[in-house]
């Protein structure tokens, strides 16, 4: 998969803008209300980029850089109320407003000096969570709390409604309820490293160190374990509608349909059938379309359960570490370990070829 087949240039050359920076891209998120894509960088900065407005990459405004953290930026999340929230190894939890301009200083939401804030999450109700080691801090309207966990925190995720926070670690996942502060433990032996909620909040999935996915149906506590990955499924996500769960963990994206009575029998693969591991993925916000990033830098659009694919970016830019669709699904942002970042406007003709999810 060194180059797109058929001689077609990748989408980034046709309708994208890309940049090469000195630091690795740690995470990417789109600020709400039609804002730019924000890239958290390993040198502590957050850079903002917009997709080009005309074909051929013309009309792309330049990058805007905001100095955020003193060391590395370690985590980034879009704030549903606007802007972004970032955590860094300087212990600060920041709110960034791209409209404020490069010269503006980000607002400091919390300062946990001496801690590395490696995970942040923001709820639809305005709660902000950040984690370091075995502690999770919650900051928000009417609630300031510190949760102590039995093991180091490996991932944080609020459910789509914003009422529950899932905290992953060793031996299971802990659920914290914003309504009453109650904690509930979902036990499952193993080391849980990544989290994803289904859009309706009925399912919670975790990616495990033991090359497996664990998935809970929260209504009745039923648990499914999906095994047989050659690697660790650390990038996972649910399709916009239904309960199709996709993850990496091998050279292809693997999906399971949890609406099926025996989901393990519905395993399907998508993307280029090669040998390069998938390193990142992102579902389109409304269509049955996946963006998959690979360890060699390639980024493809794929249809679930199909070998069909379209190159967004060819290989060579280093492992893809960050992928995110704009909220309207009209643009994709991507970033790599080697500091390559791009924002690509995805033509409506391409999106219309994929059915609604």
């Amino acid at each position, binding site marked *: 998969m060194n180059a797109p087949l058929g001689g077609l240039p990748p989408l980034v050359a046709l309708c994208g803008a890309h940049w090469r920076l*000195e630091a690795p891209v740690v995470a990417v998120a789109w600020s709400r209300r039609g804002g730019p894509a924000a890239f958290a960088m390993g040198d502590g900065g957050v850079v903002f980029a917009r997709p080009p407005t005309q074909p051929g990459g013309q009309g792309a405004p330049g990058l805007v850089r905001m100095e955020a953290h003193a*060391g590395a930026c370690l985590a980034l999340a879009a704030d549903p109320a606007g802007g972004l929230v970032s955590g860094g190894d300087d212990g600060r939890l920041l709110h960034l407003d791209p409209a404020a301009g490069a010269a503006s200083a980000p607002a400091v939401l919390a300062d946990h000096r001496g801690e590395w804030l490696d995970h942040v999450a923001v709820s639809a109700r305005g709660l902000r969570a950040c984690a370091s080691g075995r502690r999770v801090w919650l900051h928000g309207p009417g609630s300031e709390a510190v949760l102590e966990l039995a*093991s180091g925190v490996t991932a944080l995720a609020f459910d789509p409604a914003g009422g529950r926070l899932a905290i992953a670690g060793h031996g299971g996942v802990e659920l914290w309820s914003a309504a009453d502060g109650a904690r509930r433990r979902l036990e499952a032996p193993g080391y849980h490293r990544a989290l994803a909620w289904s859009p309706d909040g009925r399912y919670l999935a975790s990616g*495990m160190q*033991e090359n497996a996915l664990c998935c809970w149906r929260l209504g009745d506590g039923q648990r499914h374990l999906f095994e047989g990955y050659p690697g*660790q499924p650390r990038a996972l996500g649910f399709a916009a509608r239904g309960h199709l769960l996709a993850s990496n963990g091998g050279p292809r994206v693997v999906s399971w349909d949890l609406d099926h009575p025996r989901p393990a029998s519905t395993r399907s693969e998508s993307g280029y059938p090669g040998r390069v591991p998938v390193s990142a993925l992102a579902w389109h916000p409304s269509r049955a379309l996946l963006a998959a990033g690979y360890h060699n830098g390639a980024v493809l659009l794929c249809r679930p359960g199909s070998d069909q694919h379209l190159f967004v970016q060819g290989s060579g830019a280093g492992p893809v570490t960050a992928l995110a669709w704009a909220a309207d699904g009209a643009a994709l942002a991507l970033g790599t370990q080697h500091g390559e970042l791009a924002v690509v406007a995805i033509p409506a003709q391409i999106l219309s070829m994929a059915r609604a999810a």
Partner: protein
Amino acid sequence: MNAAPSRLPVTVLTGFLGAGKTTLLNHLLRESGGRYAVIVNEYGEIGIDGELVVGAEEEVLELNNGCICCKVRGDLIRVVSGLLKRRGRFDGILIETTGLADPAPVVQSFMADDEIRQQARVDGVVCVVDACHFLTSLERSREAGVQLAHASLVVINKAELADEAVVAQVEREIARLNPGATVLRSARGAVPAAALLDQGAYELPRLELPAAPSAARARYVPVPQGRHTDGLACVSLVLQRPLERGRFLAWLQRLVTERGEKLLRTKGIVALAGADRRFVFQGVHMMVDSDFDRPWRTEETRDSRLVFIGHGLDDSELRAGLDACQVSPA
């Protein structure tokens, strides 16, 4: 899948409290000329001269893969992942472990995690021992033997304070229990930084095992076990006839699955029947990394050399198992 040259080298320092780990660490930071991130457990208690010193709470986690010896350090995965995000600012990572720590979960963290393995590699495990006290530690404490077993390089510190006879005895014990380790003597942690910082001890193409003939052969005689630290022993075997691929791989798989907890280190350079390339492997407990390496050279003896270090190993059983993997004599 191995040895992407750009992977960040990680050096692990083990050794008992008082053996001189911190002194050695500071010496390395001064002498190497490189920029290193340092991960320590006892953060704040000791003076380390590094630019970037990070504390990590020792969090040993069992993996749920049917093997109780598959453990990783959750704190290290976290800190190293964070350091890798800001890559380009340093040349390597130095990890100082606590005096009683088992190095296996440290090394296994780098073998078991896909993301970390793609970007970082353990370059070597350095065990710092105190020339005057090491033999006593070895007799009294299981941990001393375990640390020695995992070492790719042993620094005999404070050698100038001990009798030459004692130092020689220390060297013999090291050679008996871990014949593959490089041994250096030092005074106050002063050893050449280059020798410690570019070992490639876990890179299969750089795996070296002492050749069998003449002087070295004495080392290859199986030694009666059980004298020290819960029967820690090293079994080194040389087989002249090539091994049959299917039988050998099945044997090795069964060995590490069934004996993984007792097997601290395994290493081998193997001649498989019909293969033009050397088959090399190295493992920590149940985790084994293996690959076909360079072709055999024409002047080379195509024998198989294997080393097993562990507790209560039965050398005759290992020998018999491997004998059964050999192809029939022509």
